[in-house]
């Protein structure tokens, strides 16, 4: 990929064309841009907090979550059911929030798996150099060359219908990006004077790795972990939607959408629209927070949201 130079990617530089007459909304880093960015961050944090709280509390608080009621199948959104009901007459509001909880939990656990794996591989690769580095980087290339969802499907086919399979299939396919980031960070750190000082003072490879390199890559690794969460949510829902993910009795957003497939053909669009809306709101707020964090830690380059 061709990286844009940092200064040409920022749009703050005074431009001879059009910029003299019109302020650049949302893209400048002047006072208005800062206010807008702060507003966006606050919105993202608020939305995420509200959704997480709702996902944690509503399914517990509601009287009988997931009660099947064949008197009330496919009711459109209305007073009793804010999101309507699904093909089995279950209240979609409660079910979607329960599903959001499951999806987020699976996504976070698999993100942790792949971040740990990626950090270990990346740190090992960057700190060792030589043939270990080359071998591990070829492995990273190979993993990156297989479309993630496809590799995930192959792994899920191992232990069909278990939570572990989904966690492994997401965790084992997404560590490669983290490994790349961590490796380049380690490579950058290796030439720092304090590392040189430690090495000349007789510190061993592992000591340097543990005391100087690992603490320094934690922020980068954590940032890539947060960036991974929306992607992991997408993969969980996609796998469950295809009928390969979580067992059907576990309400995840993917399972609900999978049920909603028939619902849509029968005209019940709300079975898809509302759970998907919750999903999109969650992933967008997570990636909004991650983008703000990245802008703060790497301030020379304005980021676009990436999922």
């Amino acid at each position, binding site marked *: *990929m*061709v990286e*844009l*130079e940092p200064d*040409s*990617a920022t*749009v703050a*530089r005074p431009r*001879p*064309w*059009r910029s003299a007459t*019109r*302020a*650049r*909304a*949302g*893209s400048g880093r002047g006072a208005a841009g800062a206010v807008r960015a702060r507003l966006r961050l606050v919105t993202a944090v608020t939305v995420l907090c509200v959704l997480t709280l709702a996902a944690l509390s509503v399914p517990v608080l509601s009287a009988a979550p997931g009660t099947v009621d064949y008197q009330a199948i496919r009711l459109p959104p209305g007073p009793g059911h804010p999101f309507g009901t699904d093909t089995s007459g279950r209240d979609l509001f409660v079910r979607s929030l329960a599903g959001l909880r499951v999806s987020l939990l699976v996504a976070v656990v698999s993100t942790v798996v792949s971040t740990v794996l990626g950090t270990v591989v990346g740190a090992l690769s960057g700190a060792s150099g030589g043939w270990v580095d080359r071998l591990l980087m*070829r*492995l990273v*290339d*190979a993993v*990156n*060359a*297989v*479309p*993630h*969802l*496809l*590799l995930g*499907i*192959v*792994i899920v*086919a*191992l*232990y*069909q219908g278990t939570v572990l399979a989904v966690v492994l299939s997401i965790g084992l396919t997404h560590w490669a990006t983290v490994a790349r980031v961590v490796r380049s960070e380690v490579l950058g750190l290796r030439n720092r004077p304090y590392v040189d000082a430690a090495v000349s003072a007789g510190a061993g490879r592992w000591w340097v790795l543990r005391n100087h390199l690992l603490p320094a890559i934690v922020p980068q690794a954590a940032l890539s972990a947060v960036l991974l969460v*929306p992607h992991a949510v*997408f993969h969980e*829902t*996609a796998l469950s*939607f*295809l*009928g*390969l993910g979580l067992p059907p009795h576990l309400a995840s957003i993917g399972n609900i*959408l999978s049920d909603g*497939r028939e619902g*849509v*053909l029968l*005209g019940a*669009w709300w079975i*898809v*629209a509302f759970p*998907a809306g919750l*999903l*999109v709101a969650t992933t*967008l707020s997570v*990636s909004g927070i991650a983008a703000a964090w990245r802008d703060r830690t790497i301030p020379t380059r304005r980021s*676009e*949201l*990436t999922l």
Partner: protein
Amino acid sequence: MGAVVERRGLDAAEVRTRSRAPAGRARTRAVAGLVVRRLVLAVPVLLLVSFAVFLLAAASPFDPIHQYYGVQIFDASAADVARVRQQLDLDRPVLVRFWDWLSGILSGDLGTSRSMRAPVADVLARRLPWTLLLTCCGLALAVVFSLVIGTVAAWRQGGWTDRLITALGHALEGIPPFVVALLAIALFSLGLGWLPVAGLTDAGSSLGPGQVLEHLVLPAAVLGLSQAPWLVLHVRQSLLAAFTEDHVTGARARGLRERVVVARHALPTALLPFVTLIGARIPELVTGAVLVEEVFSWPGVASAVVTAAKAADYPLLAILTLLATAAVLLGSLLADVAAVLLDPRVSADG
């Protein structure tokens, strides 16, 4: 792995003037070298991927014999089951099976798909053209759409069109393709009744270009739309960068028309990273194809992945994984070749 772009002004100028006469032949040789190097590198990657799939298959607790027999396994005698196991090569160690499979592939025998109950080669021959049709149409739609929309957004930067496009792009990045597909079915097929819901032809009608085209519109549009946000935002971003470059300022100073400046001076500089990006998006295109084919019951190879996975049909799954990996490698190779051919400043050392 990407081709390295040298963007230093003096270097570029020097390369351009120096390599005026023999440029054609040197360029051809550079491209040929790039292709050969990438093909050599692809072999270990493909081997590694296929071996990994076989290891995963061997570790699976799911016994393919159950898939072969279905419920009838309870009526089958132990001797029969053992004979079928032997026929399906299920009782031999994984390394032996991998070696057999590999030598089979090299001699043109792709094995037999258990879930489709047909030779893998037949399954591919029947399904691959439909997938190629769908993905090519989807990608073409996405590219054209994002070039137009991205240019409009960059041109009207900061205005309400730009803000709307950027906001929609970020929102669409977060919506999974299958949700877009389901909502598109709800709106265009069921709500408005313009297009068929799914499949390749209407029930009972024969396969013809008109039927296929009618059924292709919605899946291809959804696939294109699911890839578009990244491309649109990228085109916008690199056009914005291009607008600040000196030759664009120069063109403006000479009083050229706005349309000429954008289309002939700014856009070509922005196109090079765009080509690289398209090559890098092939994995996402495959992911999108799996989901879109599944929702629209499109009879391609991508939806066969799901069928094969549900039945633990590893001969088919391994080939399809290899095929997707090869597509990804080929995509990045084509993008890099295009970059080398389009821009003389790019060095072909990837």
